Structure formats: structure tokens, C-alpha cells
């Protein structure tokens, strides 16, 4: 029974649309859970600028405030270990998602980012067995998600050597930066760049850079942002453009919430859970576009039953 319990969200960054969608989902689901009397109180905490020290101090503040569980999207997989351990020692359940933590006492709701990178290449290999020149847009240097996705892409490319990565830039998961970096490297690339593999939040920027550089539009893997899907739809209607879109659903925060609630309720949950990423294919484009908020991110929110399924599935 978790009626009297308090859960906190410790979030390390709020400055992009994915995070804002994540916070919105969290707010919506947890408010309802409180109203339904499932838990007593849920609060949200966000640090200013993706700062490790600040988040560590924040976690300690949450320990002090007597939360029963902390759900965390972390600034660093390792550097918060000290604070997480203290939380566990204080008998607090810690559930991490998206930016997961490596501290063994915490629960992880992980997305197989490596798999995500590999899937992008698999999809391209299936659609275009002949392969071709590929541009890679990476995320923020020095962050492990970036490393994981990139590693997945490179492993898959090794399997399909007909795909050749001719350039690689860091787009910082931001449209403006991706656009700028792609525009810079594009002139030095061969004329026939056929594919762009991405990490999310950078597809639209890449498309614009190709357009500005008077290059034929390559097949760009999208990252579930509404503006990306919109662009894709326009291309599809105009010239049967085909691609796929893949990203982690912001609503995974709600899954983390339900998992935390289950654990508090005394259910047995494995320490490491995996959620599938949210993938949109050519066929599902229209439906996804319809359900995605203008300017937002394609999303799924989870229910307690979903959580039970994910936790029990393994």
C-alpha cells in the first residue's frame, strides 16, 4: 500500500522540447495518481544546467525531505553514484530512466541505445541493400548516450560494409546546431550522400542544411519531433519520400513512476528493465502525427498495467 508515500522526480535539464514533454507527461500522470489516492505526494525538481554537483546536492535535499522514492533522469551515469548510494542507504527507492545511473542499488529503466543505433542501419540496409555514403550526426560530446548510439551505428555499419560513413558531426541534439554543423561539413563530402543517421532532435536541421546546400535530400532517420514528422509528411506527399523515425518516448518518465510505485508497494521488480524505443514507420506516420502536439515530441504514456507487464516480462 503506497497511499501515504511521497515520490520525487530529480531531473537534470529542462531546456529542450523532449525534456519539456517528459515533464508534462510526468505531471499529468502523477497528478492523477495523487488525486486517485495511489500516492500522497509527487514533486518535481529540475537543476539549471545539466550540472552534476547541483543534482547531487539536490538528491541529498530529497533524502532530507523524506521522500520514499526518487525517480531520476541523471546528468551523469557515474558521477552521481555517491549521492545515489546515500539515498539507498536511507532506504529510499531510486529508479533511473533515460539518463540512467550505474550505482548497483538503483533501478534502471534503460533503453538499449546501442540497439537503437544498430536498428537505424538495419532499416537502411533492408530498404537499400546497395548501401551508399552515410553522414552521422552525433549528440553531445562526452555524454554516454551519444557514445552508445554511435557505437551501435558503427557496429552495424561494420556488418554492412556497403554503407560508408563519410562524415561525422556533433549536433548536440539540437536542430540549430545540427543544421550549422552539417552545413559546414557538407561541401567537403562526396556529392552523393544518400543517408543520414541521427540521434534524435536533429533530422529537421539536417534536412534544411541539405536544402540550403543544394544537395539532393538524402534519406534522413528522424527522431520523433513533430517538426520532423511534419517535414517527412510533406516530403512523402510530394515525392513519396520514405524513412523511419526512432527515439525514446518522453513518457518513459511515467513508466519510471509506476515502477517506483510498484516497488514501494512491495512488488518484486528486477533491477534492470528495458523499454522499447518508440519507432514510427512509413505506415504509422499519419497516426503518429495526429497524436503529437504541435511543436512537441511523439509520445506514449504508460499505465500501471504497462509497468507491471514490463517488470514481469523478464
Amino acid at each position, binding site marked *: 500500500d503506497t497511499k501515504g508515500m511521497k515520490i520525487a522526480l530529480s531531473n537534470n535539464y529542462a*531546456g529542450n522540447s523532449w525534456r*519539456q514533454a517528459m515533464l508534462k507527461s510526468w505531471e499529468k500522470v502523477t497528478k492523477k495518481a495523487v488525486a486517485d489516492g495511489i500516492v500522497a505526494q509527487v514533486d518535481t525538481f529540475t537543476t539549471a544546467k545539466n550540472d552534476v554537483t547541483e543534482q547531487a546536492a539536490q538528491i541529498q535535499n530529497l533524502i532530507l525531505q523524506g521522500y520514499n522514492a526518487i525517480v531520476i533522469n541523471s546528468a551523469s551515469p557515474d558521477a552521481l553514484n555517491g549521492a545515489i548510494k546515500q539515498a539507498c542507504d536511507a532506504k529510499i527507492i531510486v529508479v533511473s530512466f533515460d539518463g540512467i545511473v550505474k550505482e548497483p542499488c538503483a533501478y534502471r529503466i534503460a533503453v538499449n541505445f546501442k540497439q537503437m543505433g544498430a536498428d537505424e542501419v538495419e532499416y537502411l540496409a533492408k530498404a537499400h541493400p546497395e548501401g551508399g555514403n552515410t553522414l552521422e550526426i552525433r549528440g553531445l560530446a*562526452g555524454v554516454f548516450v551519444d557514445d552508445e548510439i554511435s557505437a551501435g551505428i558503427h557496429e552495424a555499419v561494420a556488418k554492412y560494409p556497403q554503407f560508408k560513413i563519410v562524415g561525422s558531426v556533433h549536433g548536440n541534439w*539540437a*536542430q540549430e546546431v545540427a543544421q550549422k554543423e552539417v552545413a559546414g561539413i557538407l*561541401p567537403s563530402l562526396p556529392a552523393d550522400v544518400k543517408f543520414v543517421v541521427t540521434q534524435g532532435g536533429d533530422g*529537421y536541421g539536417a534536412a534544411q542544411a541539405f536544402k540550403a*546546400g543544394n544537395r539532393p535530400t538524402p534519406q534522413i532517420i528522424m527522431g520523433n519531433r513533430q517538426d520532423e514528422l511534419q517535414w517527412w509528411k510533406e516530403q512523402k506527399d510530394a515525392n513519396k519520400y520514405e524513412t523511419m523515425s526512432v527515439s525514446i518516448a518522453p513518457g518513459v518518465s511515467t513508466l519510471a513512476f509506476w515502477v517506483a510505485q510498484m516497488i514501494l508497494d512491495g512488488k518484486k521488480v528486477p533491477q534492470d528493465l528495458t523499454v522499447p524505443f518508440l519507432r514510427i514507420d512509413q505506415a504509422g506516420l499519419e497516426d503518429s502525427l495526429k497524436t503529437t502536439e504541435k*511543436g*512537441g515530441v511523439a509520445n506514449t504514456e504508460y499505465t500501471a498495467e504497462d509497468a507491471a507487464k514490463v517488470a514481469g516480462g523478464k
Partner: protein
Amino acid sequence: MMPEQMIRWARWARSEPWIWSWLATLGVWLATIAFTQGRGSGEVLTAALVFATFTVIVGLGQMMVVTLGPGNVDLSIPGTIALAGCAAMKLTDSENPLLLVGILAALGIGVAVGMFNYGLIRLLRIPPIIATLSTSFIVQSAAIAYGRGIRIKPAPMLADFATARILGVPVLAMVVALGSIVIGIALARSRFGRSVLAIGQNMRAARLAGIAVDRTRFATYVLSAVLASICGVVLSGFSGGAALDMGDEYLLASIAVVVIGGTSVAGGKANVPGIWGAALFMYLLVTMLNTFGASPGIRLIMTGVIIIGVILVAGGEEQ
């Protein structure tokens, strides 16, 4: 006579500090196209022109502030870019008729931020570095609370303007070049420009020469913030919407182009062509390192070493 010519040239280069950033731009560009064996030599310049434009817009404002003399700097530029961009996109709501409202709101935000900055500096005597930083926190919060990270498409007119080209040359770059010329002329020939330069050289002497020191400093901080808000609007137009983090990279960039472009951190000496040279150089440097496939670590180290190298040259010159 060869040596005589060289001496003349050297003297000229010394008196025109912008020459170094343009030479560096040339060097980096040559290195890049040498690596690609000439492929894309023209396009890379066009791309550089497009993206340097945004840095130039904020760089010009930062240049005016830095020219006011030691200690003057505007750290609130990123926050202002984000808030102005978000506000303009949200108010415009992708509708051409509302564009004017959005732009006016953005400009209003710029004016307000500038006034707030100078109020902290003058009335509360908070050092500019901390005053503008505190402002940037507040402005950033406002951007988050107001924008909520929703990416609204710019009005088509704005987007067209921001991405339009005439004979392959970006229209925006032409407009900003025009603006740079205006600022250059203002520096050389307007009361405001001369006042800024005089204050930066010697504030006491400026006061005794009858210059309205307070009014000029106030106007300069407002100008910087307004340019940042303009950057926020056109950047949103260019990249298909405003994002909360779109100003972040312009904090260091604005300061770096000012320093590399030959503007003196000791104040009193501004250089408009240098801002362009430095902005192009910074962009082409990243492009070069991307082309070479340099790792992020090497990239950072190179950037730092170059900034220090440039002030070593410039510092030696002043003694």
C-alpha cells in the same frame, strides 16, 4: 624596393588588427580545401557566411559593450536570444500578419533586458560580469516558463527572409553587412559612437570633455540586448523555430569574436571588419576540424590555444 614595401605592409597590418582574423580565415579555409582536394571550396564559404551572420549580430553588441572599457561585458546574451526567439515565435504563431507583433515583442524584451542590466550596474553598483549573469538567469527562467520548449514554426515570411538568397549570397548576410556598416559609421562619425570610444579610453577625460557618460553606457547595454533579441528572432526564422537552448553557444562565441577580431579588452578600440573575420574564422575552424575528423578534446584545446595566441599577438602590439 622590397624591404621598404615589407615594412610599409607590416605597419599597415599593425594598424588594422582585423587583418589577422581574415588571414587566419584564409589559412583555415585553404587547409580545409587542401584536405578535400578542392571539393566544395565555394560552398563551404557560403555556409560560413550564413552562420557567421548570427555570431556577427551578437558580436557587434558585445563589441560595443567591451569597448566601454575594462570590466564591461554582457553575459545575458544567450538568455535574451532564447526569450526573444520564444516570444516572437509564440506571438507570431506561424502567421504572417502577426509577424510585426512578434518582432516588436522581441525588441521590447531586448530593451527591457538592457535597461535591467544597466540598472543593476549603475544603481546597485553590481560589477557588470555578475549583474549581466544574474539577469541571464532570470531571463532564462522566463524563457522556460513562457516557451515551455514548444517549437513553433516561424511565420513563412520570416523563414523566407532568413533563408533567402540572391545570386547565391544569403540576404540575411547582406542585411547584417549593411547593419555592420551602419555601426562602423556610427563608431567613426556619430556622437554616440565617438562617445563610446572616448569612454573606453578614459572615462574621466570623457566626462571632463563634456560627454554624457551615463547616457552612453546605458544606450550601449540596451543596444547589445536589442541585437541579441534580433539574433533570437532571425535565428528562429532560419532554423524553423525557437528552442530554449539556442542561445547557449553565443555566450563564448560573442566574446571570442570580439577578442579575436582586434577589439581591445582594455576598451576604446572597436573593430567591425574584425568581427566578421573572426566569426568566419570560428566557423571555418570548426568545419576544418570536422573535416579532419578531430576529436572533441582536440577541438577544444585548439580553440583555447588560438584565443590565447591571438591575445599574445595583440597584447604584444599594445606595449
